């Protein structure tokens, strides 16, 4: 239906999104060019290593955007988004495992290696179908979405909010981590899934595939961003903000708050899943530690750093923190946790609106402090 487009196209008409997409595509294109054209060893050459690294950053960025959607605009602080990320990742990982086929060390045509040496005789039912790309890719969306749907339905229906919600999301991801650590689960236990060979027929161990994945991630991030932007600039976005700030009031206006929450939560979970799915082939392994609550918290901190309720802020935050990690682990291995921890404290205490907040301050100093910077301008709203 025609109207359904407008909410998706609307963001393309607003300047901030245009700038964001412009920068993103320019960066991706530049990296691609420098990687392809510049000769190995040239000062401007971008090594495959850097490309993959950036690819990883972009995955994290997408995850951060997903978190910002629920936290920034819906006021739901999810400490369990790592779970959706990881599940998406596992779905992709299972596909990649099946792609190994008989090239595993035991040469078993069907069973992944870890199943062979823990002598499983046949493939468990939930591994069925993952040899088909389309099925796996649907699962990448469906599995996290379904989990979010069930969990969210229970939580929002009984109006679990605020801290309580945060804590049980934490419980959720923690429980999942323990579960996936168990070898009986059939997900490779602590070793997780690894030793991937190829994806859609492309050899994962070639630079060209890596570049392809990097570009794909860039596109995914762009799409994800536009979807989120579309939601937050739509009336639904404003309803979300309403739920965030005055839940009861919103109910009395006739909105089913729990459904709004559920909808946005599920969308966000799916985005997280996609991020995970793109992450796995690039880093080459998925293991239960992605379920670790600490990881989820860290993601939230990226968003806080970049600036809550401004989607591009989440992207900035994710890339900055992870870049910082890369640098610190190299420069001062023993001290990088200090730096990271310090960063978290300083940001939350002195930069409540994050980096994006700084930018906005510069733009319009007259901006009222009560007003949330994320608030879309009416002309956008009514365009």
């Amino acid at each position: 239906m025609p109207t359904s487009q407008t909410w998706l196209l609307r963001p393309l008409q607003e300047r901030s999104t245009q700038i964001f997409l412009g920068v993103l595509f320019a960066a991706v294109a530049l990296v691609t060019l420098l990687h392809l054209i510049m000769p190995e060893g040239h000062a401007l050459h971008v090594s495959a290593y850097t490309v993959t690294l950036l690819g990883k950053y972009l995955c994290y960025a997408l995850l951060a955007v997903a978190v910002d959607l629920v936290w920034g605009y819906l006021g739901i602080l999810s400490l369990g988004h790592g779970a959706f990320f990881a599940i998406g990742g596992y779905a992709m990982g299972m596909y990649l495992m099946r792609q190994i086929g008989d090239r595993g060390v035991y040469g078993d045509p069907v069973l992944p290696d870890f199943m062979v040496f823990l002598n499983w005789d046949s493939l468990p039912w939930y591994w069925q179908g993952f040899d088909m790309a389309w099925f796996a890719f649907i699962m990448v969306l469906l599995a996290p979405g379904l989990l979010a749907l069930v969990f969210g339905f229970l939580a929002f229906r009984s109006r679990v909010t605020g801290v309580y919600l945060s804590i049980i999301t934490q419980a959720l991801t923690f429980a999942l981590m323990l579960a996936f650590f168990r070898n009986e689960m059939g997900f490779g236990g602590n070793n997780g899934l690894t030793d991937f060979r190829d994806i859609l027929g492309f050899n994962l161990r070639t630079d060209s595939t890596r570049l392809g994945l990097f570009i794909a991630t860039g596109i995914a991030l762009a799409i994800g961003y536009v979807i989120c932007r579309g939601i937050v600039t739509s009336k639904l976005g404003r309803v979300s903000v309403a739920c965030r700030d005055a839940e009861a009031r919103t109910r009395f206006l006739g909105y089913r708050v729990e459904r709004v929450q559920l909808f946005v939560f599920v969308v966000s979970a799916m985005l997280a899943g996609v991020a995970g799915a793109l992450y796995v082939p690039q880093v080459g392994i998925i293991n239960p530690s992605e379920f670790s609550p600490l990881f989820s918290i860290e993601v939230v901190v990226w968003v806080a750093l970049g600036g809550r309720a401004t989607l591009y802020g989440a992207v900035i935050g994710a890339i900055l923190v992870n870049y910082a990690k890369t640098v610190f682990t190299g420069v001062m291995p023993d001290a990088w946790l200090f730096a990271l921890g310090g960063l978290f404290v300083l940001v939350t205490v002195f930069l409540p609106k994050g980096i994006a907040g700084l930018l906005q301050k510069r733009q319009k100093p007259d901006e009222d402090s009560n007003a949330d910077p994320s608030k879309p301008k009416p002309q956008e709203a009514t365009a």
Partner: protein
Amino acid sequence: MGIFRWLTPLCLNALCLKALYLKPLGLVLLLVLSLPAHSQTEADPGQALLTNLADASSREIDAAIEAIVDSGDPRARDWLDAFGNNRLSRIKDTGQVVEVLRNVGRNWTIADPLTGENLGEMSRRELDRVNINNAIRGKLEGVLAMLDLYSDDPEVQEKAAEAMMGKVNASVVKPLTKLLERDLPGPVRNRIEESVAIYQLEQGDAEAQAQAITVLTGSLHSNARAALNNAAVGDDPALAARAQEALVSIEQKLKMNRAAETLYFGLSLGSVLVLAAIGLAITFGVMGVINMAHGELIMLGAYTTWGMQQLLPGQPGLALILSIPAGFLVAALAGIAIERSVIQHLKGRPLETLLATFGVSLILQQLVRTVISPLNRSVTTPEWMSGSLVINGALSLTLNRMYVIGFALVVFAGLMLIMRKTRLGLEVRAVTQNRAMARSMGIRATRVDILTFGLGSGVAGLAGVALSQITNVGPNLGQNYIIDSFMVVVFGGVGNLWGTLLAGLSLGTINQILEPWAGSVLAKIMVLVLIILFIQKRPKGLFPQKGRAAEG
């Protein structure tokens, strides 16, 4: 079997043994004093005995031990102890057998086992350990136990009797039965009877076996069950049947004990959870601060215990007791520091406090890693806390856990007192109910905050002190407990200490009940899922907070 050959002659004249054991200390001292002279006479028999022991191959070792005991030498026991504790070495070039007093580091302190004279330090390169392994040690224990049975100290006797269980064989039956003729303290007698019975059941003739079974029927001791089990699968059907009956009746008794045991395990796990969570219940419940660094405060408490033990070497008990106030203080101060530096800037932004304190926790962890060490620190358990309280052969309650349970309850009671009876408690409750109102009534909310947070953190420190007796003291200590703590608090209902207590204990018990058949991992997962579902039913926990404060 062969090992006890030597006991036969020796025990025919049990007197010698007795004499050997009972030599009054004074006399031994005298001997020791007179030793220098003694050792000058070039042939100290001990020298030969020890060399013989050192040279002995695993086949000859029994003979060597036998020789030492037979010698009736007053120093024999010390030698055997030294041997058992792996403290006998030979100097490589001289071949002299020495006792190692201190075997830490590159240079060891050695002494002459004959004269007891300290020979100073020697590089361990120069020393060659006299080998001993579990098998030999097991036999040695039997020998020493046999000696100890003649002690006058009932405790020593009891230990010895305990040690005899399952170690009886042909050579010691006679002396044991002899021993039974003397009047012995009840427990000692029972043990000896049982141990003899076990032997009879294996070796004795039909009617001896029958007797044995009747003796063992009551016993809950594992060795007794072991013997019966063997008999039950033995080739004599009649005997097997009777053994089976005995086992059944024992099993009946065991059921109760096992249930009690599980309950105890549940409580002890629960009390650990309570300890870990209760501090959080205060900071989280009262101030609405989500303190992710809570785990690290626990860790600080644990490290304080370690530090104390470093300060007071050799007195782990005293150190532990002192570290209760110390741990509280350290953690409390750290907590206050956090409150002043970070949390006070985040008033009314609970979720932000979560992020900031998460940063703090990272810093604290790394701080410990760099300042102290990434390795775990070893905290010794004082004598009076190790071992277990034996209710009967099947049910024994581990002491350290019992202390922890008690400690948890004391801490809880203390907090309750503070909250109910003191001015602080009153103010705290006032602030919890309605901050603005409280302030307008002249309560200095900031001061209350500081004290509250200090209190909560201090309690975390106490938890650390307790945990140091149960688990690792290392940089990751905190991480392992933070999530559980939050679960307990939320499950119990924020801001309600009773809720926390109940939640902790019940979660602990549930976990322990599930564990046997679900396995530890699954049990934990189940508990988590249970919490999630429970929160759906009662979004505000077991004991929801009342009044407007809860609406927020």
